[in-house]
């Protein structure tokens, strides 16, 4: 039986085309909103280098979740109550972050050790509590398990709506305070200098990170939620240098990954949602790593080759202008020149080459002189010897060089 004809495939198509029922659609939509919020908030978590702190935080929520569940059953709730569990998760996550801070204040404990210690031992405590809960006959205890690796398919519609509303709220806050977050992330001193409350902005950003982590626990699971915060921004980073674009792309990647992951967990019920979401996001990241036009591996390699050939062409034209018409030795460069119509059959310069040679030569000389004099005033992102020096170099530098030549 081929995969196309299989029951799983039919189910997958059904889920993706939103025919799996009202409940499933709500859960998938809610998860997508969560993914968008995580991608956008994660952009700042990632830019501030806080990725691993979020990892410690998410693992530290486990004892709180289980204790909140125990408190809930003691108070007589029949099934697990999501808001109560989220409050427990937040409190215990915050205790974990505070413990981490306290540890890093001690001279011989570095941040990485503090993160590892909190992550491991809080999770250990959570596992002990979880093993206790499993011996009880309280209702809903099986659902606690989903907080580890995530299980969207087990979510109730009301839970999905709660999650979507909270995530949308976080998303709106980021959009409203985007300017503040961006400046605080990139130029703290300047932001502080113009009188912005940098610490408060930082705190707000951290709080949003905590909020998204906690909201996403049930869907993605606490083991992998950090991936939803970090992988979409890393994927987005390959596409642009502009924070706005990065945040937007990260939001879209996050939403798509979350939707795909939730859909996959409906189609293949044994696959934990968190793993499916992270794999989807990972696929986006791998694709971007290779194929993003400007910063992807292929794009960067192609641009480097192009630069090498263009520079070789400029140098050859310059030597033609100075009377040396010998063809370059590199066969690749020769082919490039022939393709550009600059050399004829015998490797001799064409009329077009002779016509453009003097201008190219003057331009190259300007570049060489500029680099020898004031390399620091060459702006970033220009192509040495290829771009028109008069257009991209500071005019005073050009004037200085030409004044000296005259």
């Amino acid at each position, binding site marked *: 039986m081929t995969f196309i004809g299989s029951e799983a495939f039919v189910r997958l198509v059904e889920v993706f085309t939103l025919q799996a029922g009202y409940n499933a659609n709500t859960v998938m939509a809610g998860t997508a909103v969560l993914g968008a919020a995580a991608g956008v908030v994660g952009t700042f978590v*990632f830019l501030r280098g806080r990725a691993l702190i979020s990892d410690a935080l998410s693992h530290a929520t486990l004892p709180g979740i289980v204790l909140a569940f125990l408190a809930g059953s003691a108070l007589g709730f029949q099934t697990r109550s999501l808001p109560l569990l989220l409050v427990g998760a937040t409190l215990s996550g915050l205790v974990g972050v505070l413990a981490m801070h306290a540890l890093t204040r001690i001279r011989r404990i570095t941040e990485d050790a503090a993160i590892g210690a909190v992550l*491991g031992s809080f*999770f250990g405590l959570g*596992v002990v509590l979880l*093993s206790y809960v499993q011996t009880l006959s309280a209702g809903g205890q099986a659902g606690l398990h989903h907080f580890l690796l995530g299980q969207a398919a087990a979510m109730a519609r009301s839970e999905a709506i709660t999650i979507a509303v909270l995530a949308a709220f976080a998303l709106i806050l980021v959009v409203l305070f985007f300017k503040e977050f961006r400046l605080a992330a990139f130029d703290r001193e300047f932001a502080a200098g113009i009188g912005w409350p940098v610490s408060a902005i930082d705190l707000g950003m951290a709080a949003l990170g905590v909020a998204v982590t906690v909201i996403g626990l049930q869907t993605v699971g606490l083991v992998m939620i950090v991936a939803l915060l970090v992988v979409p921004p890393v994927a987005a980073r390959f596409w642009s240098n502009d924070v706005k674009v990065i945040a937007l792309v990260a939001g879209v990647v996050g939403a798509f990954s979350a939707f795909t992951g939730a859909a996959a967990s409906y189609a293949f019920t044994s696959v934990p949602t968190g793993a499916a979401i*992270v794999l989807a996001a990972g696929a986006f990241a791998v694709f971007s790593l290779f194929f993003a036009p400007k910063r992807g591996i292929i794009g960067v390699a192609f641009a480097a080759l192009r630069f090498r050939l263009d520079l070789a062409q400029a140098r050859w034209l310059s030597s033609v202008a100075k009377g040396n018409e010998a063809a370059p030795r590199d066969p690749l460069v020769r082919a490039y020149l022939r393709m550009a119509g600059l050399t004829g059959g015998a490797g001799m310069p064409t009329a077009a080459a002779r016509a453009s040679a003097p201008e190219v030569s003057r331009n190259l000389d300007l570049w060489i002189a500029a680099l020898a004099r004031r390399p620091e005033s060459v702006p970033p992102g220009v192509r040495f010897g290829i771009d028109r020096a008069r257009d991209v170099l500071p005019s005073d530098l050009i004037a200085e060089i030409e004044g000296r030549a005259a």
Partner: protein
Amino acid sequence: MTTFLQIDLPAALTALFATLVCALAGNFLVLRREALLGDALSHAVLPGIVVGFLLSGTRAALPMILGAAGAAVLAAVLVHFVRRYGRVEPGAALGVVFTVMFALGVVMLEQGAAHRVDLDPDCVLYGQLETVIWLAAQGPGSLIDPAALAQLPRELVTLAVTFSILAALTAWFWKEIKISTFDPELATSLGIPANFFRFGVTLAAAVATVVSFEAVGSILVVAMLVCPAAAARLVANRFGSQLAVALAIAAFTAIAGYTAAAFGPAALGAPIALNAAGMIAALAGCILGVAALFTRHGGPWRRAAAQPA
């Protein structure tokens, strides 16, 4: 007595050797500020372990370690790529690679075939101390009976052998490892291949992670790697005494943690057993917390005492 020999002794000894192996390797990681390498490795090796299981069809240690080593190398290459081409800071690069590989491992686990060899996400998350049993034990005599000893649980034997090898290597190359860890340049000028020893220590950490992984789970390995070593660093001033203290703390947490989890609830009147690996990790965290509270290296207790009233 037989129950103790069959169930508690092998599990406690497995826990003991797992914490010892981790504390030994963790010492170097903590000193080199590479504590999170353990976290990354313990997650990233999962797909390799699953592939090792699937290809060999057994839970023998060697295919598992080979698969894990392959995955660890792949993870290192990927982290390098993401950092180099994504111009991403190391923490995020690590985070991306290890979570994605872990997710891949979890999905592979769920795709049926791994169930044959009885490996599931629960085992990955909490370990399987509770399933380490020595059925051949029929009484105290079994402890000196070669036939019964040959039936000792595989996890226990793997961990004990790994610990012995790592401990012997550490003792043998003590001076070289010490100098390479603290002063790589001095080591090079003395003719010691510092990079070789640094790589060796990383490799030891990877092996420690993989062999303890099965017993205590991927996340708890991190606590075992970091907590005893970090606590020892607050107590001891010399490298040798730090290692000794870390091993002592590790041994104590393993025995005390196992005892508390297995017999604690019964002593309090509840006939249940708690998760031993989790208890050991939590206890290791508590010990670090106490050490941090009272340390003279900036601990809150000393700081408060130093303040004039």
